[in-house]
């Protein structure tokens, strides 16, 4: 079985050099000018909070909300970790953007036949056994690529080694059921623009709770409706029949 890959981002090590964005833009053949927010031409971007830099990118959720909501299944979660988008399927309903709990997918609003854009976790490089371009470019090791299990273990070791420095939490370990991008930090996550109130179970279960009732609604509803129709219709027929009987009796009487 393939091992699930991940990236560990240690915010305390990031120096804000933007090498990750530049490398990403290069492998994805995008204009290399610096961008401060995620966009259709920036799959990753640095946000600064008082000298602390936070890399934003797709979290590559284990049970991705984007993949579950897409009506045509344009998103796939690969066993290696990446969540990838297939433009040839997409109909452009933007439900993925509406639903993503991290507000990651970006849309080509100015394009007349737009695509959804987001980090691919370099799945083509992964297939060749290479690490993601951004982690390879990172000069300080702030972004580290590896097996998710190993990285989680390493993150816990770092937290334990310097308990006063680190916030004792790995963001992405449990959020919406776990993700393939993990963050650790010395500044509380809430102050760095992270959503810390997200539930720890995967979101798709919420809609599945409703969707799984459909077979029941169809069979019970169908039977019920048919039953009601049968009864009311029967009543109707009986009434009509009695009326007819009544009428014929009457006319017979008249004849007699």
């Amino acid at each position, binding site marked *: 079985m393939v091992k699930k890959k991940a990236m560990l981002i240690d915010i305390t090590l990031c120096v804000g050099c933007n090498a990750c964005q530049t490398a990403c833009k290069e492998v994805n053949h995008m204009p290399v000018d610096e961008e401060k927010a995620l966009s259709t031409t920036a799959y990753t971007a640095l946000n600064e909070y008082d000298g602390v830099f936070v890399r934003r990118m797709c979290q590559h959720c284990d049970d991705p909300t984007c993949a579950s909501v897409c009506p*045509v299944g344009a998103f796939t979660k690969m066993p290696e970790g990446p969540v990838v988008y297939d433009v040839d399927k997409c109909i452009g309903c933007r439900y993925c953007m509406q639903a993503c709990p991290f507000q990651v997918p970006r849309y080509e609003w100015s394009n007349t036949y737009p695509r959804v854009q987001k980090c691919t976790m370099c799945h083509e490089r992964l297939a060749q056994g290479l690490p993601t371009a951004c982690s390879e470019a990172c000069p300080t090791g702030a972004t580290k690529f590896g097996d998710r299990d190993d990285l989680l273990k390493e993150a816990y070791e770092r937290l334990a080694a310097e308990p006063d420095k680190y916030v004792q939490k790995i963001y992405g370990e449990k959020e919406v059921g776990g993700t393939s991008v993990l963050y650790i930090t010395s500044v509380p996550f809430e102050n760095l623009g992270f959503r810390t109130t997200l539930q720890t179970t995967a979101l798709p279960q919420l809609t599945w709770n409703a969707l799984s009732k459909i077979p029941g609604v169809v069979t019970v509803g169908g039977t019920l409706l048919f039953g009601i129709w049968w009864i009311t219709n029967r009543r109707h027929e009986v009434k009509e029949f009695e009326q007819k009987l009544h009428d014929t009796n009457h006319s017979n009487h008249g004849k007699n």
Partner: protein
Amino acid sequence: MKKLFTTFGFWKMTAVVIMIAGLYSTYVRFFHGLGASTNLSDTFPWGIWIGFDVLCGVGLAAGGFTLAAIVYIFNIKRFEPIIRPTILTAFLGYLLVVVGLMFDLGRPLQIWHAIIMWNPRSVMFEVAWCVMLYNTVLALEFAPVILEKYKMTKTIKMIKRISIPLIILGVILSTLHQSSLGSLYLIVPDKMYPLWYSAYMPIFFYVSAIAAGCAMIIFESFLSSRAFNRGLELNLLTEIARICVVMLGVYAVMKAVDLNDRKMLSLLTVPRFETYMYWFEVTVGVIIPFIMFTQRKIRQNTTGLFIGAVLVVVGFIMNRMNIAITGMEGWTSTTYVPSWNEFSITMMIVTIGFIAFYFIAKYFPVFVDEHEHEDVHKNSVNMYSMHEDLRKVSSPV
């Protein structure tokens, strides 16, 4: 007659203006893209085309399956005189929802992908299939009206033979997708303001759609009685208002219990924009019409009925817009105000609906009692029996 002409002149002019503006916006939308034509953004990807054109369009067409169930499943035949216009409203409503979607989808030519590329975990996938199938059902339910005009009795008979399964299918499909429009939002527990987000949204959507569907039956009967200068089936509409008030009551109780269960009642007094919008929606769309429709006097009064119905419809639209827009603005910290292109396209779609209804009703036997509408007032029994006769020849399924 002259007065009628001038009022029609006014509406005609308005329609022409709306259509011209809408066509221009259509050009902007398809030749310059969604960015140029809408105020949508990465943080606010769904606007009024989803909130109004889809959520309200589908919901307001709920009268179709409600009345079909009453007449054909519950066999309450006295409602037959209003079934055709109601089915027509529903059919046009659903067709226009699809038209609205073609504007909203970024890659509209790929819309058929939903047919062959399946994702059963997606609510949107389910809604797409239901709407597709229900459109077919509605087309078949309405077809006899068209066929009747061309005296194609054989085809009518064929459709009539499958009529009951067809009606049942229609009711089930409607139940599924009306509630699923609420399920669409189950996936955003964090993003939506908690006054609206609830695990019971599917049920709220379903019940409120039936209430709004009833209100639309009343509303539409009034408009067509005006436009076609025909009588009004007041006693039937009074009964529809009774169904409506029951639905509103059920809805209000469920909403209150749900807020209480989620310990969110305190939010009702927080001075925030969302609170005001919530109260506005509930007062206009539920509380006032509920009180009105519980009064027999108002139910039996033409003006009272009309005002009550309009309030329900307005409140319903507010509810859907609040869920799609107001409730989503806070978390994303965006304010979304639709662009004028979004407005003009929406208005164009609504106008197309009115025009289509007018012409279909004018040239096809939608109002079967039309030439005898004097009798409607004088003698409803007479009208009913006349209907019975007509029904033997043909009926909308």
